[in-house]
């Protein structure tokens, strides 16, 4: 696997209470050149997000201690973390209502079972668009 040098600096937090899912996703992302931070539940994920240096959060929805939706809500509500895009893995048919989309700022819902290949593509696209959006955001802030 050729590591993508452009992605080498990106850190992705993978949160899921299923160790095998964390393992396969981490393997796929690391093979693509990303650095992976693993979290085993919502609370663990939140403390690692707050510790800083996370470029994207990929989280399961149903997790102990804090659901993926709650985690996304906290990330969106905290000025220090609100720039971090969140992709959530969910059951098929899971929908966010308008209020939740605004409150959680989740950029993508991906239904389980998922394709690691497809997931990697979505993560790349999200990071690219966030980078462009982030620049615009910086202009707005300034």
């Amino acid at each position, binding site marked *: *696997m050729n590591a993508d040098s452009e992605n080498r600096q990106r850190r992705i937090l993978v949160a899921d*209470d*299923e160790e*095998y*899912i964390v*393992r*396969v*996703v981490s*393997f*796929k992302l690391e*093979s693509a050149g990303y650095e992976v931070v693993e979290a*085993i*539940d919502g609370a663990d994920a939140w403390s690692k997000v707050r510790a800083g240096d996370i470029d994207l959060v990929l989280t399961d929805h*149903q997790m*102990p*201690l804090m659901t993926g939706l709650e985690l996304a809500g906290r990330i969106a509500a905290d000025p220090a973390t609100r720039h971090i895009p969140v992709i959530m*893995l969910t*059951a*098929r048919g899971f929908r966010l209502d308008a209020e939740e989309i605004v409150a959680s700022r989740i950029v993508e819902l991906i239904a*389980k*079972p*998922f*394709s*690691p*290949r497809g997931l990697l593509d979505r993560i790349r696209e999200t990071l690219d668009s966030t980078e462009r959006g982030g620049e615009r955001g910086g202009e707005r802030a300034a």
Partner: protein
Amino acid sequence: MLDVTTISGVALAFVAGLAAAWMLFGIRIRRACISPGDARGATTPIRALDERLRRELEALSREHVLARRIVEERIGRFERMFASFPDPILVLDRHGDVVDANPAAKALAKIDADDDVRIDAVSPRSLEDMIGNRTAVRDVLEHVRAVVAAGSEAVRNAEFELDSDDPAGVGEETSRAFEAVIRTLDEHGRALLVLHDTTRERDSSRLKSEFVAKASHELRTPLSSIHASLEMLADGDLQDHAQRAEFLDIAIEETDRLAKLVNDMLDISGIEAGVARPRMTQVDLAEIATDVVDGLRAAADRRSVDLRLHVQPGLVVEGDPEMLSAVIGNLVGNGLKYVPEGERVTVAVDAEDLTRSVVVTVTDTGLGIPPGDLDRVFDKFYRIKRYERNARGTGLGLNLCRNIVEQVHHGRIGVDSRLGEGARFWFSVPASHPASMAA
């Protein structure tokens, strides 16, 4: 001053009274009036007429009494039905006010049956006063207007929910669901409102939906790992033998988990639907417990768990050996899975004289179960929050145990635990043979 009307009224009353007197005492009057001299010639036709009238009158009187009794009986029957009907029934006048309500309806309105509160055409009550929910009342009254406008035989159905202050469901859904049938009652524009409590059906339907949602999540989780592992293998992401072996192992393990989940789901649905066909025979529970413990000995050793067995020989029950073995296997397996390394799991099979049953207990020296979780550990897909990380099972094991013990073997199952002091899971099955009882 008496006017003409009064006089004629009095006269009429007098004549009517006379007629009645004649009808009642006619025979006697006439007998007294007719002289014995003309009795033979003139009285014969009069007597015959008199006799006929008397018989007709008596027949009419009997019919009247009978008809009245029938009507009274029917009214009494309907009143008893109205009073004893478990569903609330309300009679509404053309304005939508309640002019009659059975005890169930009064109970809904929290009117004490002993209070003898009057609800009738003279003292009507508003529907909102009776059922307390403005939105539901508006909806129901709209239907009432519609059926009254449509005339006889018009029927409408409505559904609504009422808040319940029943403390039984603390923290749970406490509203009650009702289905209302509204129909015209008579030509005076009155309507009948019958409420049927559908809370149980609603809750059962919600439970089914929750089960489907949870089952769907539990099925997708191993499927995700299997799909991802195989796709990475196919894509050539796994470059060396060790990586391929690791991800193939994940796929195999998750396939087994999926198979067990599907089997547990099918077993539980089979028992719940009453289509499971247990093979009942005389089962020595001590023997089964020994086999299960022997089979799990290696797993216990791997986790350095001290697995002990205390059995009384010859404790026989009537049961399905495979199912009972699955129950003991699940309870011991849980013990091994959740106790920290170095702790102890003890399996015991004893006779219980008082209930004439055989009791199997699986006691561990692990972390214990929080009090709030004790009642729910036998629910489908229920997981104790603090142990969720350890859970590699199907989430259905204890529910399957409960189904096997209670539904198939008419036994009992339960758990006692204090946080930090381990847990004691137990089940008892009626002893089938006096020899199985302790001396």
